């Protein structure tokens, strides 16, 4: 831990911690601040899409464009709030809320067939035909008891059993936070 956190006072750290519902410890917030400053090359107070894309590991991610729209123009406090979903201290319910937000593009509280289709399109690219994609989603929705034209709300997401896979999120971030300077 270096002592270049002179720009972040104790008050700032506590405010950010409040805002993200104590998802991160104070040390982690300082590390995230260093990372934020490192990515924000022109010191404009927020990270532009281009600056995010200069991280090759992020740029090759199929969901990068979708996430960029959520990340664009966020200041540090909101940046930490965005990442809080990946913290081990956040409940499963809040993580599923975050997942819902990623799907719910126009933020109307409902995830429709088209929303799921658009995410699947991002993830599979040109390697599945559009028709096959639609067929997959229809089949899977029907098997879970929904119709093709039904829209899912947050409680539907909660009902779907996604427990195991969220364990990825826990270990990954707690591991990484030890690395940042």
């Amino acid at each position, binding site marked *: 831990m270096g002592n270049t956190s002179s720009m972040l006072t104790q008050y700032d750290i506590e405010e950010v911690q409040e805002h993200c519902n104590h998802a991160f410890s104070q040390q982690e917030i300082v590390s995230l601040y260093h990372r934020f400053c490192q990515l924000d090359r022109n010191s404009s107070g927020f990270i532009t899409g281009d600056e995010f894309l*200069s991280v090759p590991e992020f740029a090759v991610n199929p969901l*990068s464009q979708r996430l960029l729209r959520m990340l664009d123009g966020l200041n540090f406090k909101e940046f930490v709030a965005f990442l809080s979903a990946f913290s081990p201290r956040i409940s499963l319910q809040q993580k599923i809320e975050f*997942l819902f937000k990623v799907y719910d593009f126009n933020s109307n509280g409902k995830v429709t067939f088209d929303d799921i289709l658009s995410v699947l399109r991002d993830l*599979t*690219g040109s390697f599945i035909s559009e028709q096959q994609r639609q067929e997959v989603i229809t089949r899977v929705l029907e098997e879970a008891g*929904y119709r093709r034209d039904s829209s899912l709300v947050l409680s539907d997401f909660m009902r779907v059993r996604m427990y*195991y896979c969220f364990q990825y*999120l826990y270990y*990954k*971030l707690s591991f990484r936070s030890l690395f940042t300077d």
Partner: protein
Amino acid sequence: MNQRVGTDSSPLRFAACESASIPLFATFIGARRRAPPARTHRQIGSQLVGRRILAAMGGLDSSSMETDLDRPNIEEYLTTETIREVPKKLHLSDLLDISPTLTEAAGAIVDDSFTRCFKSNSPEPWNWNIYLFPLWCLGVVVRYGILFPASFSWLVSLSNLISCMFCRVGVLALGWIVFFAAFLPVHFLIRGHDKWRRKIERKLVEMMCSVFVASWTGVIKYHGPRPSRRPQQVFVANHTSMIDFIILEQMTAFAVIMQKHPGWVGFIQKTILESVGCIWFNRTESKDREVVATKIREHTQGVDNNPLLIFPEGTCVNNHYTVMFKKGAFELGCAVCPVAIKYNKIFVDAFWNSKKQSFTTHLAQLMTSWAVVCDVWYLEPQYIRPGEIPIEFAERVRDMISVRAGLKKVPWDGYLKYFRPSPKLTERKQQIFAESVLKRLEEK
């Protein structure tokens, strides 16, 4: 040097993690994973998808996608029953749960191995108390006021000139004067005796480099046998700054491949370095690669040419990591002599962050610090082994250099500093996911 617990010494931390991308770090940092406890089929199934996505990701440039450096780990990780397992039916949760991909993205935002290679780590400040601070102030006065005096002052009077002769800018200025006084006549007047001319020019360039090194009070230790002038060999070294070239040139006159720079550096490149036989390239030109490859081949075959020095990383890295080597130097069919360079950070951080400072500022920074201390190791010449492809050869040599100089290896292409990653990498991930979805769709 920043030492972080867990970066290269605790497999325990890795063993606890289910996250699919940890093995990527583990492979390149050298920690080996222990076999994880038995899991449910579901976890392993989704993990298999995640791992394969990551194995493809790796940051390898598109030409080396076949070398899947992460693949060997997967068999030791999974038990034999699960590998034979038939893929399960597709459920809504599989489609909705995009958390592995999201975690990848969040992980990359929080920390990534590529940006770390180009970070100048500021040293821990030591001048923080009442008796160290005045000492540091005195040091600043000595470094800026005596060792590197303002260059215009010596023009003012001869007495100043004499006193400044022992100072760095003075040394450098004097060196340039002597160099040009000798070089220009030799270059333009001695025609016909080409061999002699080149010998003298070579010696002059070596001398000039020694002057440069002296002007930063360079303390350089060379280990290993000195390079010899033979055909059919190239030298490869890790790259931290343009001064790497000067340090190596001091010992032996190399011909080097360089990017053409603007300004006074470009002028020097055009006039002086032509005489040692340098090859120019332009990063931004796409057809440039074949042209340069041909020139390199011709150079190595010429008997009378200076030995060729190539920096296969293609860009300056911060001397804690090595990025992937470009295979151009390794497919020539001649001997490759690795050279490892490591700077001692206690005295000065020699990393030239070309995005943050110009070369002139960088030189000024070097000249206003106490010394430039570094170690140079000339390693044993390597030949390509039968059945080895150039990329594997490049990786093997990169291994040798990284181990010798104490650098960590990173699986990224240095040119990603200037260009975005190829869309083929994203497409590969999409392809793997698409295939697994289709396969599971067939299941009833």
